[in-house]
């Protein structure tokens, strides 16, 4: 048991952390916002928590709270200019935001440690803490899908004109999606800080962005299972063979192209849809039988 944990523990931790970022990305996409800001919001959460702990000796619990709050606040501020943009322009604007946060992190050396990174963060978060956060966020995402929030996000994503014609204030609901996405990114960024001794600004860069997007596109954007499955497969895959691990971004890129072309709804959503269709067909057949 102990040796099993030694071998798989770090991978489990990695999975739980990445799962949080995947859900942050999932939420904005679900509400029809094509944002790539999760990387930057995670960086804001991580550095908020890290700086408070290292420079001001703030208690980790407070640091995690502050990281979550800063992620939320940054997302809310960002949602305002973003409400005027659509589709690919949102993607470009949020990409610029990721770049700005990255540059600021390197520039503000005195505060963030610059390119050298922020060192000596107490490592107080282990597998149980990550697991608790991952379970909580999974539950919230599941709950959103079963209440009016999920219904409203879905109609906005599918057809904005319809949403508006039913009385939905699109900017307000997209700001909510954004704030939730920022809260989750900030929370898991802060957890990452307290899980890894040091923060390097480049972990929240382009490869982070590609990875989180890949988890969601690969797994699926609709059901809660999408990010759960997508993240699991894409984290485990590079563990199977060294060459895969060394070319992680390349492998993710190729997988993305394949999935977008052949399973555009993602692996988990496609399987769930097929299962749902079979159940409907069986029920219709049974009904027809009963009529005979």
């Amino acid at each position, binding site marked *: 048991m102990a040796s099993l944990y030694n071998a798989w523990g770090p991978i489990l931790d990695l999975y739980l952390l990445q799962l949080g970022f995947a859900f942050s990305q999932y939420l904005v996409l679900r509400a029809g916002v094509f944002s790539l800001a999760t990387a930057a919001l995670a960086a804001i959460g991580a550095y908020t928590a890290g700086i408070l702990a290292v420079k001001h000796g703030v208690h980790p619990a407070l640091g995690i709270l502050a990281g979550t709050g800063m992620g939320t606040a940054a997302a809310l501020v960002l949602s305002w200019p973003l409400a005027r943009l659509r589709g690919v322009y949102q993607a470009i604007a949020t990409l610029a935001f990721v770049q700005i946060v990255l540059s600021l992190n390197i520039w503000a050396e005195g505060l963030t440690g610059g390119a050298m990174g922020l060192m000596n963060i107490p490592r107080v978060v282990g597998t149980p803490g990550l697991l608790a956060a991952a379970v909580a966020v999974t539950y919230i995402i599941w709950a959103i899908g079963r209440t009016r929030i999920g219904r409203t996000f*879905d*109609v906005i994503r599918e057809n904005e004109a*319809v949403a*508006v*014609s039913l009385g939905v*204030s699109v900017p307000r609901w997209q700001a909510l999606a954004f704030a939730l996405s920022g809260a989750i990114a900030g929370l898991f960024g802060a957890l990452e800080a307290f899980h890894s001794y040091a923060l390097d600004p480049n972990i929240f860069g382009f490869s982070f962005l590609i990875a989180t997007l890949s988890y969601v596109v690969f797994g699926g954007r609709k059901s809660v299972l999408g990010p759960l499955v997508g993240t699991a497969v894409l984290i485990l895959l590079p563990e199977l063979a060294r060459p895969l691990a060394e070319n992680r971004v390349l492998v993710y890129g190729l997988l993305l192209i394949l999935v977008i072309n052949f399973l555009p709804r993602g692996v988990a959503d496609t399987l769930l849809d097929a299962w749902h269709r079979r159940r*409907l067909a069986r029920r219709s057949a049974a009904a027809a039988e009963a009529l005979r």
Partner: protein
Amino acid sequence: MTGGLELRALGKRFGGVVAADDVNMSVPPGRITGLIGPNGAGKTTIVNLVTGMLSVSSGSILFDGRDITHAPAHAIARAGLARTFQNIRLMPEASILDNVMVGFHRHETSGLLAALLRLPAAARETRAMRDRAMALIGRFGLAALADHPAGGLSYGHQRRVEIMRALATDPRLILLDEPVAGMNDVESAEMAEVIRGLAAEGRAILLIEHDMRFVTGLCAHVYALDGGRLIAEGSARAVLSDPVVIEAYLGSPLDA
């Protein structure tokens, strides 16, 4: 004027194209008001102006005595005004039930925190909305298909889902943009009954339709539009036999 929709000298220009010009109309509650006109006459533009999806160039729009000319589209919907779309707009992969449930948006009141944590209040609300949606679907005879994806339905059934979604908002005014286009005679007769029932409930109805038999059968009062201008109004029979209206349709038979 008590209640209903009131258009006063409404105008809309798209660059050089005048899509609505000095349009005066009223759509009173409890009655079905028709709006006819050849393709490109500006009928859908009127719906888009009233629902706030297009900005008004000139004139004003009153709804139940309130000026909604420049109100945001979602606020107009929340005030009790619903529409269907000429080109059907459903969530094709979602079930009929889910498509209808989103229509209840303006009646959902559970707190955001309750919804985020799926507290009992939010779960109860979802169950209540599902029951109301199922009742509506049953009334339209689609209960057996409630779990089927809307995108796979026949044209006539998809139009019904659109109307159910609009009705879920419980509107006092409903704008129907060609609700029986693509339906067969049986389906369109059923739809006529549904629309009559809505008027009997006291709702104001604006019906846009090319099927003149359908219009004559239902409408108390008809407006005819051509090139963005009203060219005739009055009883269906009077409007359809008006030479100007016949001319606008370029002699295409108006068998009423």
